[in-house]
């Protein structure tokens, strides 16, 4: 394999992987903050993209304002969903709540599909049509923006969880709601905040990815690969989600290059099984230890 081809494949891997990482971060955040697997996270990605598309088409707002308003609006949707649909189920079995998130996701997806029937729509970005040539390979600047955003987000989130009272409260709620409540942590508020941040992150992922893939109701399908990335990373680990995403990107792209494009998914899921066989808690996860 020539060096420029190899380099191009590496760029493609990092680009694809960073998309998975961005969505995986939202998943891991919701899990760390509430202990919930949110199957509607993929639909927050689509919802964010559609919000941004609507604002781009029907207002004259600048790109940064579109991003800000979209993240805030989707965060608000996250809070409404949590307060209206998930909070009443706070004592229900975890499996029940997971199914409810799945139902919420399907409702959002179908609403988008019926309300906006264009096969795929275009969301403009300041980086449209811009690419860099590096060592005989080219990379789209939007991909660099996604990679940069993923790394920045993970850094901010790690600091947030480690250094702020709210972050620590979210971790406490995830570990033991009853104990956290006894210690004075407002569990309901933490739930709302977690969903707001998680939905906002999903929206940000949608805004960043849409200029490359287009806006369509199926955008949420990226959730499956994001799950794989999060599991490979250890599910509790934010840096793990990013590393997991990048590993999936590498496996898919190089697997596709050597064995054909239709085998890309096979490599992603085979890698998941392989990693779990060697490290059942993922690359950055730790086995749960309970005092008896």
């Amino acid at each position, binding site marked *: 394999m020539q060096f420029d081809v190899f380099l191009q494949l590496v760029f493609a891997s990092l680009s694809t992987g960073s998309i998975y990482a961005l969505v995986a971060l939202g998943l891991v955040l919701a899990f760390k903050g509430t202990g919930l697997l949110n199957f509607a996270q993929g639909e927050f990605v689509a919802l964010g993209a559609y919000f941004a598309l609507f604002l781009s088409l029907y207002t004259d707002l600048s790109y940064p304002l579109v991003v800000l308003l979209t993240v805030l609006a989707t965060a608000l949707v996250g809070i409404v969903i949590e307060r209206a649909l998930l909070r009443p189920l706070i004592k229900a079995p975890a499996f029940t709540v997971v199914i409810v998130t799945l139902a919420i996701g399907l409702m959002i997806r179908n609403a988008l599909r019926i309300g906006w029937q*264009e096969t795929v729509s275009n969301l403009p970005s300041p980086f449209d049509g811009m690419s860099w040539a590096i060592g005989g390979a080219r990379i789209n600047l939007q991909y660099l923006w996604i990679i940069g955003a993923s790394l920045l987000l993970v850094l901010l989130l790690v600091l947030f969880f480690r250094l702020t009272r709210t972050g620590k409260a979210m971790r406490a709620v995830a570990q033991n709601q009853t104990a956290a409540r006894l210690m004075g942590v407002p569990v309901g508020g933490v739930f709302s905040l977690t969903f707001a941040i998680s939905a906002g992150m999903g929206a940000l992922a949608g805004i960043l990815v849409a200029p490359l893939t287009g806006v369509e109701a199926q955008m949420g399908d990226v959730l499956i690969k994001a799950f794989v990335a999060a599991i490979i990373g250890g599910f509790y680990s934010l840096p793990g989600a990013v590393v997991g995403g990048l590993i999936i990107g590498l496996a898919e792209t190089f697997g596709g290059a050597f064995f054909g494009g239709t085998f890309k998914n096979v490599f992603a899921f085979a890698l998941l099984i392989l990693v779990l066989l060697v490290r059942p808690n993922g690359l950055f996860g730790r086995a749960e230890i309970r005092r008896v």
Partner: protein
Amino acid sequence: MVGFLRGFATATLAAAVVLLPPLAAVAEPGVADDTITIGAYGPITGPAAFVGLGGRAGMELAVEEINAAGGIHGRKIEVIFEDDGFSPTTALAAVKKLVDQDEVFMIFGVSGSNPTVGTIDFLKERNIPTYVSIASAPPVTHPFHQYMFRGGTTESARYGELYAEFLTQFMQADGIAILSGSDEFPKNEGDATERFLKEWYGIEPLVRLEFNVGDKDFTPQLLEIKGTNPDVIVTLGHVTEAQIIVRQARELGLQQPIFGSGAMVDNALIANAGYAAEGFIGGWLTPLFLDSQHPDMVAYMEAWRAKNPDAPVGRPNVFDLLGYGDMHVVAEGLRRAGPDLTREGFAKALETLENWRVSEVATPRTFTDWHHIGNLRMNMMVILGQHWVPLRWDPARSSTVLDEFKK
């Protein structure tokens, strides 16, 4: 005793003659004095909702026009529509309900290939006149069945013939790379293109690669294509993939012309790929694009918008056009079948249609008593100045698709 039996038999026969209606007066299912009830199905939920919603709206517009013009021999058309969710099993349940419970006269399909295939055996077995507007699945017309008709969409094999001739004769290409989706219709189109490139022109594609539905990165395939230095890149699938393939191909330095399948001829390609899509060529199943200023298209768009004032973004689409054109074809068949409407008479009447169409917004449809493939045409469109522009090209070779029926 014998006399009694003879008397009883005579009385029974007489009663039967008096009480049972004459055979000629037994109406066909779905046909009343003032209405003809048609059953229709398609996806209005699920991933392909834009297919069924478009097909249904186009069909409804046609029905409104037909009824406003007095209907068919004094009968108004009524349509009962069922959602198939793009699932073969749901589609089968839908047509069973339409046939057995609603007792419709015929079935009008505005669904994709997968759901349509699920209904075909049942409809053939029950001899229900069926008019498929959108699905290109071969089992609709192969083998020949008296009551199965295909309208606006043409056959998979015909796509292969048209693409092969266009690529080699119009585009003068002999180095051809094919990148197709791995799902039903792009795979069929890719296979057919490969077949006719070999059979008609002795050309073996430089490379034949595939991708999965929903893929967002095509770098590995495009790098392999780049290595073969083709004259033309043929990409077959949906516009959702095409807009990424086109952009990535240009980013990777592939400057060759790109040819794509009919599903890619969509304004979304221009909107999403921008100037990277300039020069992209693809096939389109109606003579005019939606933004054409031809009076027939202008009239159609005005009528459509009047009926659908709050239409969502992206509509009308090609499926609106197909449903509209094909319902008018069905109406013409019903008209030709005469006032004493029967299923057999309707099927025979459709077979008299030769190059019939409602207006320039549809391709002409022809049916005979030995084939029911209504359309073999496709128009080639190119993106010029960020608009879809029709290319003046007509195939010189006659199709072999109908040969098997002639034998």
